[in-house]
């Protein structure tokens, strides 16, 4: 049952991804991307990471996509009327296929290794996923978390300065 559901959602994700890279109108691409984000949020729930699913929908499908759609409509970019809205399809397809083949080769032949932790399904059910994330974020990763706030501040100032009209 779970396997069928996985394949169904994966199919929807891949099809919406194809929509993103093939639609002529940027608004349609953006809607396909929103659909992909929702599919990925479903996968995060299946991987017992509900907090990640929530911020996937709130940050990506909510904030970032609204920003992108807003800019598309602000610039009033219609459908690209010229004949070619894509270029160098053969070379790019070769490059993408090479990337795919390389990753699948390594996934198939390599062995998974890494630092094994003690977070099991029972631990997540007992403590809650959000609490575990928060504990990691505010103890072990406190310095990167604070640096992130500086990054966001710099990004906001940069965006305002770039986008404002010359005085």
């Amino acid at each position: 049952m779970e396997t069928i559901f996985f394949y169904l959602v994966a199919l929807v994700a891949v099809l919406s991804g194809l929509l993103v890279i093939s639609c002529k109108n940027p608004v349609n691409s953006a809607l396909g991307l929103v659909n992909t984000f929702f599919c990925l949020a479903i996968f995060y729930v299946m991987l017992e990471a509900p907090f990640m699913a929530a911020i996937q929908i709130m940050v990506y499908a909510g904030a970032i996509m609204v920003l992108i759609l807003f800019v598309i409509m602000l610039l009033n970019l219609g459908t690209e009327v010229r004949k070619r809205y894509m270029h160098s399809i053969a070379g790019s397809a070769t490059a993408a296929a090479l990337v795919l083949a390389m990753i699948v080769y390594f996934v198939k032949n390599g062995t998974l290794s890494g630092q094994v932790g003690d977070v099991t399904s029972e631990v997540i059910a007992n403590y809650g996923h959000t609490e575990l994330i928060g504990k990691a974020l505010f103890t072990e990763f406190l310095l990167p978390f604070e640096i992130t706030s500086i990054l966001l501040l710099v990004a906001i100032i940069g965006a305002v300065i770039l986008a404002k009209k010359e005085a």
Partner: protein
Amino acid sequence: MISVYHYLVLSAILFSMGTFGVLTRKNAIVIFMCIELMLNSVNLSFIALSRHLGNMDGQVFVFFVMTVAAAEAAVGLALFITLFRNNETIEVDQVNLLKW
């Protein structure tokens, strides 16, 4: 039963689709959206591996990737607006001032 390999292969498919989009499209905003697709496929493999290994670090990393994506969206879209104001286009093959 779904293993971590299913998620890794799905993530690889999404990543290569994003690569294809970045290399073929001309509209800068669509290229930007393809980059978001690639970032998200990497996030999926991070969370799948984190779940597989029982380690929370991967999910914290996804948190930071999302922050960087938000900052990138803000700065990138401001750049596109400036570009459009100066050039009346955001198609990448018509922006060739620095091209020799």
